[in-house]
């Protein structure tokens, strides 16, 4: 499936020379969403070439930017199609677009409308003025959930690199391989990944700590304790196993929670850098201890 829409000027309904011009990225999901929310209205839709990347990420990279907007206004001949000189942009595109330059170079005034596409009809009905709510970012449960599949798939990609070797190591006890131990270890790894990529985002505002790594460690530790209680019933599972499970699951969950910073609209790069400086060494030490425990168990314990 292609996620790219050819850039250019599209008509929604039957727009005229005085109809508003809404600008978006050529990321298929943004494009479809704008078409759907604008259904029943007559507007022009100017699609910029962002190589299939959404407005927010493309603005950060500069592809949803002043240059592309000016170029697209010129190549589509927008000034001959509409009589007014205004283009409406999502607020999330502001980090790539310099309003005064667009005005100088293309003669168009840029209006930053709303953060969410859903609010666009109301913005237009209000005579192009945004309420405070339309301009204030939110990160609701549903907004967090939408991102979960991407996170989970991203987490699974590390499986051959981290999950598999760990499970192989854990499969050995006192020098002999056990397929049961291998299977259980794989499942525990998956639970830890889900704890970091799904449970932590779900509970985000409720979890203690400001650092995502801490939040992820809390959910990971809780999940691992629950698993340890169940595993502890088996006579084949020793205290060293349980200690390794708790440490490792906490680390894995914490790591994936830290990765979630890339999907949130409120984490600054300076903050993420600080968090990584503090959290990565702690994860390395904890993970290292867990691996030593597993290795010791594999060989002689």
């Amino acid at each position, binding site marked *: 499936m292609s996620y790219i829409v050819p850039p250019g000027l599209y008509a929604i309904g039957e727009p005229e020379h005085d109809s508003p011009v809404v600008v978006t990225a050529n990321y298929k999901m943004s494009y479809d969403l704008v078409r759907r929310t604008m259904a029943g209205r007559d507007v022009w839709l100017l699609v910029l070439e962002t190589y299939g*990347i959404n407005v*927010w*990420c493309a*603005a*950060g*990279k500069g592809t949803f930017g002043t240059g592309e907007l000016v170029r697209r206004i010129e190549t589509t001949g927008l000034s001959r199609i509409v009589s007014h000189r205004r283009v409406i942009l999502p*607020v*999330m595109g*502001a*980090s*790539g*677009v*310099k*309003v*005064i330059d667009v005005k100088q170079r293309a003669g168009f005034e840029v209006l*930053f409308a709303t*953060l969410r596409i859903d609010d666009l009809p109301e913005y237009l009905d209000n005579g192009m003025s945004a309420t*405070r709510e339309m*301009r*204030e*970012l*939110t*990160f609701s449960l549903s907004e967090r959930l939408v991102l979960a599949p*991407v*996170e989970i798939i*991203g987490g699974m*990609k590390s499986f051959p*690199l981290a999950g598999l070797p760990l499970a192989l190591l854990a499969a050995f006890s006192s020098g002999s391989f056990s397929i049961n131990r291998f299977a259980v270890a794989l499942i525990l790894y998956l639970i830890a990944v889900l704890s970091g990529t799904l449970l932590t985002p779900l509970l*985000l*505002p409720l979890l203690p700590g*400001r*650092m*995502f790594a801490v939040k992820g460690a809390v959910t990971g530790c809780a999940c691992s304790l629950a698993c340890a209680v169940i595993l502890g019933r088996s006579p084949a599972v020793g205290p060293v196993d349980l200690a390794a499970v708790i440490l490792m699951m906490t680390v894995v969950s914490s790591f994936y929670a*830290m*990765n979630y*910073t*890339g*999907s*949130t*609209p*409120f*984490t*600054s*790069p*300076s*903050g*993420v*850098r*600080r*968090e*990584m400086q503090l959290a990565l060494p702690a994860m390395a030490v904890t993970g290292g201890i867990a691996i030593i425990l597993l290795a010791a168990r594999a060989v002689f314990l």
Partner: protein
Amino acid sequence: MKGFVYLPDVVTLELDQEACIGCGICPAVCPHRIFEMRDSKAFIRNRDECMECGACALNCPVRAIRVDAGVGCASGMINTWLAGFNIRLRNDDSCC
């Protein structure tokens, strides 16, 4: 943003109120309502909530705002860091 605050005292956002000409564009482009206009000057309400997207600094006509802009993404940073050692884990970033 309501209910969400990241680490305190790390963001690089700086506003030079002397230079500000009160054009009012920074409050309009900031997704976190960091700025407020007071007596025709921009004013930072809640610095810690800034996500360093750079929209304000880019659009300020007199360069009264400074911020090291970027996307706050741990996996992106890890990949850049690994690339420095010529290690490539995956070529498609999970975020931006």
